[in-house]
Structure formats: C-alpha cells, structure tokens
C-alpha cells in the first residue's frame, strides 16, 4: 500500500477550515476529510486509515477505499500530500 505524507504542516480547524501559512491558500474540508487528514498526520497507513473510516462512519470498506483514493488524489492535486509507492 502507498504511504501518504502531508507536504505542509497543516492544521484543520474545528469547523473544517484550513489555511496554509506557507502559500496563503485556504480550503474547506468536511468531517470525513478531516478524519482522513487527522489519520495521515498521526502517521497511520492507508489500510489503518480505512479501518478508522469504517469504524467511525460505518461505511463499507470498498466504498471507503474508493473515496479515500479520490480524496488523496485531490490532496495531491492541491500539492498538499505526497504518496510513496510501497510495493
């Protein structure tokens, strides 16, 4: 599984607002997205993050995996995260 790291020292506020001090950009993140960012920040692997999503939200693992993939690709698009291919 891929290892995901955040490129910035980001802080998402309680409300879901995220301001990047290094670039001046701001983003809004919903509760599910906050949960994922939190997991990545605390060093969880992709599979651990999936487990957290399933436990927190009661979503099925397939859906969670598909949505996590898209969310991480959005993070990359915004230059907020990198992934390392761990074969």
């Amino acid at each position, binding site marked *: 599984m891929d290892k995901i790291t955040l490129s910035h020292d980001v802080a998402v506020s309680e409300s*879901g607002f*995220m301001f990047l001090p290094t670039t001046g*950009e*701001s*983003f*809004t*993140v*919903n*509760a*599910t*997205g906050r*949960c*994922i960012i939190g997991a990545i920040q605390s060093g969880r692997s992709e599979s651990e993050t999936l487990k957290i*999503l399933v*436990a*927190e*939200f*009661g*979503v099925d693992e397939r*859906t969670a995996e598909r*949505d*996590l993939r*898209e*969310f991480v*690709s*959005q*993070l990359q*698009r*915004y230059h*907020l995260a990198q992934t390392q291919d761990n074969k």
Partner: protein
Amino acid sequence: MSLGSRKRYERPTILKQYSGYMNKVGNRSGLAPTPDIDGVSIEKMVEQFGSPLFVMSEQAIRMAQRRAYRVFKTRYPRVQFAWSYKTNYLDAVCATFHSEDSWAEVVSGFEYNKARGLGVPGNRIIFNGPDKSEEDLKRAVNEDAYLHVDHFDELYRLISITESLGKTAKVAIRVNMDCGVYPLWDRFGFNLENGEAWQALKRIMATPSLKLVGLHTHIGTYIMSPDPYRVAATKLSELARSLQTEYGHKIEYIDLGGGFASKNTLHGQYLPAEGVVPTIEEYAEAITDALMQHATSPSELPMLILETGRALVEEAGFLITSVIANKRLADGRKSLIIDAGVNLLFTSFWYRHKITPVRDPGMVSEDAALYGPLCMNIDMVRESISLPPLNLGDLLCIHHVGAYDMTQWMQFITLRPNVVMVMQDGTVELIRKAETLEYIREREQLPRQLSKNNVVG
C-alpha cells in the same frame, strides 16, 4: 462504538476557496432534497420501476389546467384550451387533459389518430401543421375536425377533397405576423403584412365547400413578454373585423396558439426563469384585454382558443436518475455520470434544469460536470452544477421535464425507461412500459442473405 453514535458518512471532500466563486452559503448547498412526488417516495418508486424513471403527476396536470382556465375565464367569457399533443402525447397525459375539458391540438396524422383512439371526437380536434396528407385531410373532413390551413398548396388540396367528397370543411388559417418577437416565425402559415393572409381568406370565402370558422396564430416559443400576445390578439381581431366589414362574415374563434415561457431557465439566461418570466395572469391580461377592446358587445366576442403545452405540463414531469460513477476530469474538476442522458433529456440542450438530490444533501457541495450514460461526447446534461457528494446509486431528481422530453426522446444506444404516473389517490400507475430488445427488433427485418447461417456459418 455503537452504530447509533456513528457519524453520518459523507464522501470525504476538500475544496479550495476562491474569492468570487465561493458562495455556498457557508458551504451548504442550498438544495432542499426532493424525497417524494405528491407524497409518494421516490426511492420506493425506483425500487419498483427501476432507474432511470420518468414520473408524471396527475395532480400537477389537473392543477395547472384548472388554474389556466380560472385565470382566463375570469377575464374572458369564452375560453377553450386544446391540448398540444406534440408536447406530451402519452395516452395517460392526454386523457388527463381531456378530462379537464381540453380539446386536442394535433400536427400530424399520427397525432390525429392517437387523439381519435382516445375517444376525442373530430369536432374537438384542431388539426395544425404543414404536413397533412390527403388521407389525413379526408378523415378530418369526414369527422368534422377543425382544419388550420398552413399554405396555399394545402388550401387547394383541401378544396379538391371537399368538392370530391361533397362535404363542407371547417377551416381556419394560420397567420404569421410581426409581433416584435425575434425570430419571426414566417415559415408557418400566411403572412399578414404582405397581404398573403387576406388572399387566403378571400379564396376560402369564395369556396362554398369551406366554412371559415377561425383565425389562428402561434407567434413563437418561450416568449418572455406578454406584449407580443397583445399585438397578435389585436392584429387577429382587426383581421376578423375586416372579414365582417367585407363579407359580413363572423368567425367563431381566435386561436392564439401557445408559446408561454416556463419556469425552466435557458442556458443563456443569467437570472432564474421563475424570477423573470411573466405569470400566466400577465399573458391572460394582455390577450383578453386586446380581444375585449375590439368587441362591440360581449355576445360578439369570438371564442378564445389556447394551445398552451409547455406551460401546463412541464412542471408535472420529473426524471429520476441514479449516479453510475464519480470521476475526476483531467483538470481536477469533479464529474458525475448518471443513467439518464440527452437521449431522455432532449431539453437539456437549451435548459439549465433544476436538479435536486432525493436524500438530504449533507453539508458541502462542489461544482461538477454532469454526464449522461451514452458513449458519445454530446451526452452532457450540465457543464457545471453545484451538488453534494453523492455515492454510487444515489438518486437525483430532475425537475420540470414534462414537456417535449417524452416526445423528443431518442432510442439511441440504450432503451427508453418506464414512465409512471402518480395518481391523485396516491397510487402509482405504469403509463408506458420500458422498452425491450424484442420491442426494437420486432420492427427490424434481416435480409435472407444475411441470415445467421450465412453470416456466422
């Protein structure tokens, strides 16, 4: 963690904030969900009849027709609506309009026969359009229908037919004129300003087998102002007066066709249609006011016929569709693929339909391109629409699709789905069965030379 205390799952979303573009009212989509139609759960209907699914509301049709009658009849003594078949000719829809005292307005032999098949007598059918075959005209003359003549070739053909049948036909002419509307629909009927209309009327008055009963016009479609109707009603009233002065002939009715704008917003329009288009009261005021001004006494007033289609049925139709896939486009924009495309939603070429989620939409929304299921580049329902995150299988409700979508739909790439009607008693009736492969193949014939043995053998 117990199931009950789990947080609601919404697809994880991160949105970059751009000034000038961010307006989701604090990230709420502003979209109220549409869980039901006339109290009947959309999810239940889809469970039973599949997706995509067209839903018509009997109540909405009846309410619209009754309101239209009320609005016009409180302003004018004699009003008759005629249901425009081409707008939606599903039997159940037409029958509902007929039971609300609407005649039939047809524009082809096929539509004429459909109306007759529903039991509409000839003397409650208005036959319009440029293409009426010899056979169509004969049937209409024999059944005493109202024939609205579109061009001179038709007029001469009709003279021959009535003379050979030894019958009299009830005729009106369709007139086109300058009402200040762009574009001028001069391809239908006889032009008023260049004298052609008067020439046609003269020819009819000189033909004993033709009885001139009315004057008809249809000035255009989606007319955004009541004024052109005032102009049209005035000009037809003046034409009627000329007939009276020249021939002492009194016509029975003036038919102002249709063309009222509806609540669907056109692609080029910035403001939502509901905010800018006139109400039916405003159209009625303009039309009846003009007609009244030309009357010498109330008993002299011709009957007013209206062929309103779109404005009466559009809001009674819904298209329920489900999400097939979520996709990111190459530039990062979100896109959704749904199972109803331009094959079912012809009107999406010109309308920005109101589209709402069926379930509570959640807290965030994001702009997305909305694509239909066809493997064709033209199949785009909307270039950009703000929608909440949707999971596979989630339902969307496309509003105001009762007009033209169920007549202009295409059997292209895939088959047409079920159409149901939510009845006033709360039951749901299937009014057009989904098409099947057999239904399509039944019309086809494979040449013997290409039969299976020869091709595969």
